[in-house]
């Protein structure tokens, strides 16, 4: 029983050549005629059909999913330009990939429930271990999608997901699916078999100022905070810095100072980005909001980011019971990367220090993360989060 993992990266200026370089690096490391699963992450300039075709010629993957991103994570590096490929060949882990129909065509929850049933299909009897998905749609309410999946797979089933966009200006992302590059879909991979899986997530943001109460909310829209239009919270703190035309959102302010919703779990906050501001001053987030919840403006810094990385990596180490994961998937929030700036790669070094240097680290920067709040034990509380680092150790 063995699992071979290979990661390749390239930032060759020609996208097709970059795909070739990265794929050849994976092929060399795998030393296998074909790959059972390939995950691709690429910055927007590398969203290239010819490159994808080249990858298929070289790696001959049975299944392929992936997403565009504003930052690729490949082993020791976090790069703002390039393509990164993860290839896995295993006779102990089984993969099944399914994608949704266009997200705009059907209600999110129905769409994802159907997807979950498709995933179960011939994996009904297999030892299902976890699900990873990438979804395009930064301004949608992602909670129904998650609920649909949980309805189909079970409330406590380990799920992590990344909401993808191409840049900090929130251009929608693209999804790699087999030989296609798609928009407005979600692509998933279900893993089953004899493997140990661990999840760790943390955000490192801290509450700032006085707490307020969400006095009116509907779905993923916060209408009123302390009986005032929700955006007044930001106006209160940032005054002149708030753009006059709020139709484009709060820009960087929303990324650097998200909202923290206090949950039942002691001293834990679910972080939500204000992705849009409606004309009545309501704030749109990527997940559902509970009326009556306490809300704080949150603040983060490099040290807090590093502490949370340490926290998430420690969760993985503890849950693996001494086993070093072969693959570590990383979903890193775009805002955290912005805060960490040039020292973003230090996070990966820190993770490897804790989890093990032989682990192959692969991931991408996301605009929203779906994960349990903390370690895998909290999977029943899996929710849409922002500004977090989510790790999934597979070994």
């Amino acid at each position, binding site marked *: 029983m063995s699992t071979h993992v290979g990661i390749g990266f390239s930032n060759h200026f020609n996208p097709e050549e970059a795909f070739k370089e990265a794929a050849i690096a994976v092929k060399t490391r795998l030393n296998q005629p074909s790959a059972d699963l390939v995950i691709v992450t690429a910055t927007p300039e590398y969203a290239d059909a010819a490159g994808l075709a080249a990858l298929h010629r070289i790696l001959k993957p049975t299944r392929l999913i992936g997403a565009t991103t504003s930052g690729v994570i490949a082993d020791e590096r976090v790069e703002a330009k390039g393509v990164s490929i993860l290839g896995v060949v295993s006779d102990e882990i089984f993969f099944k990939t399914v994608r949704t129909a266009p997200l705009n065509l059907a209600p999110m929850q129905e769409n994802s429930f159907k997807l979950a049933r498709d995933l179960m299909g011939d994996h009904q009897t297999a030892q299902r271990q976890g699900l990873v998905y990438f979804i395009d749609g930064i301004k949608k309410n992602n909670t129904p999608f998650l609920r649909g999946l949980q309805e189909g797979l079970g409330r406590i089933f380990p799920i992590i997901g990344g909401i993808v966009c191409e840049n900090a200006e929130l251009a929608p992302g693209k999804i790699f699916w087999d030989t296609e590059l798609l928009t407005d879909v979600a692509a998933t991979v279900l893993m089953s078999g004899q493997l140990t899986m661990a999840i760790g997530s943390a955000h490192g943001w801290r509450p700032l100022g006085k*707490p307020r109460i969400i006095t009116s909310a509907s779905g993923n829209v916060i209408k009123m905070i302390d009986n005032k239009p929700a955006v007044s919270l930001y106006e*209160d703190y940032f005054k002149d810095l708030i753009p006059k035309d709020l139709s484009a959102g709060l820009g960087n302010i929303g990324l650097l100072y998200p909202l923290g919703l206090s949950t039942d779990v002691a001293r834990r906050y679910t972080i939500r980005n204000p992705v849009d501001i409606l004309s009545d001053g309501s704030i749109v987030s990527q997940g559902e909001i509970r009326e009556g919840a306490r809300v704080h403006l949150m603040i983060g810094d490099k040290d807090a980011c590093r502490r949370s990385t340490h926290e998430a990596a420690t969760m993985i180490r503890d849950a693996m019971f001494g086993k070093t994961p072969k693959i570590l998937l990383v979903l890193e929030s775009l805002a955290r990367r912005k805060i960490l*700036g040039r020292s973003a790669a230090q996070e990966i070094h820190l993770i490897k220090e804790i989890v093990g240097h032989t682990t192959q680290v692969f991931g991408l920067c996301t605009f929203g993360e779906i994960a349990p709040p903390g370690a895998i034990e909290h999977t029943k509380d899996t929710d849409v989060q922002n500004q977090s680092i989510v790790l999934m150790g597979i070994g």
Partner: protein
Amino acid sequence: MNGVAYPVPVFDLTPILSVICFLLFTALCVILYLLLSKSESHREVKNAYDKIMASFDELDEQAKLIVKTDLELNKAQEELDRRLSGLNTLQKLARNISMTLDEQEIFKKIDEPLLKKLGFSRSLIATYDEEELLAPKSSINMNTDKLHAALLKLIGDAQFMHALKSGATFSSLNSSQRTRSFLVDLFDMEHFILAPLLTQRGVAGILIVGNRYQAPSVTEGDEEIIAILSSQISQALENSQLFEQVYRSTQVLETRVNERTKELSSALKDVEDISKKKSEFISAVSHELRTPLTSIKGYASILITGKVGDIPDAVKERLGKINTHSDNLVKLINDLLDISRIESGRVEMKTSAHYIKPMLDNIADLLTPQLRDKGVVLRINVPIDTPEIEFDQSQVERVFINLISNAIKFTPSGGSISINAHANWEKKEIMFEVADTGIGIKREDLTRIFDEFFRVDNEINMTVKGTGLGLALAKNIVEAHFGRMWVTSEPGVGTTFHFTLPLKHEAPQDKLKKLKTVSS
């Protein structure tokens, strides 16, 4: 029927009422007390609540300050990151462009990926052409059809060009409204930085970078980075122009050197041809002269012996002179023949190993009569450890005889001649000196002393006859042995002829070392 009156019991309700009243009063009091105390507690709670709210508000005010500071820090951090990234890119570019001296290559190095790293999407580099017009050399994402017209308009704006020539950098951040609108319209960039390409000769062109719309505005840091970039490009352009100039000069120089070399080679060949012809001529003439001269000398010798009849003394004396002059002429012809043979390479030096001291002693014996006649002392200083050297003994003897004879000739009575030799192991040669205390040679004659037929103009030469070939022959012999010959002299003090002969043997100490090695 008589009615019976039953007594009606009468109850006194007063005490009960009193108790009730008391109880009511007490309850009232308690209620009143409770109400009063609750109101007090409420006030306390309210006070506490107000205090908490006030603390929250204070906290919030502090939070606002924190946010403000944090925003500034983030902005500074972003700017710092941008600058570092820009400087890093700039450093790589500087390295790249400094490695090329081709103007076109310099422009090619400024490509789109690099521009993006600097945070811009469009760029233009234009330089002045021969007609003093700005010509585009490299552009990225610019409308090339409109560039010429835009550049013409730019140089047409006297006010702008005046400012540009002073070395000013313009940007959408620092320019006046007029300049800003002017440049935005010309180059279709909302955010831009325009920097002159300044060389030692003045403004050589312009560099403009920027973004169209919906892009972050430029910062002071961007301005600084673009100013550095323009300076790097200017420097590289200047270097390439200098290189071009140097290259062209070198080409011209090389052509000239080649031409001169050809001329000199041709001249040298002519000289060599003439020299060869001269040698051949001398050789031929000498041969032709020697044959009749031998006959003349033979006949004169026969006549002098009286075998063909008695001859008067006066004739005998004249025949003697014929004989002596014939001998001189034979010597002259022989010297000429030797020189021509050595020059033409027809004389092979028959070298073999000899010690120099015995040879010099023989020469001294040979010349003793002359030395004695002249009253000149000859000293031979050859160290005992002077090794054997390879040379043609008869030829080297001629060299010494020539030099010593000359020394005797020019050294007055009572003077001395010394022959010194010492081995120079580093140069692998033996140096000889033939020094006299004679009349010396004038400075102007020293350069011609080895020329054939040259005779120094002095009293001795006027009285003592000579051919002027001795020193030329000696020098030729030494050079044929791969040695050198030169002269030093001071009029009235003396003259020293120096020459070297190659030393092929190893130094005594090396020999000793080898012996030790072998024995150990």
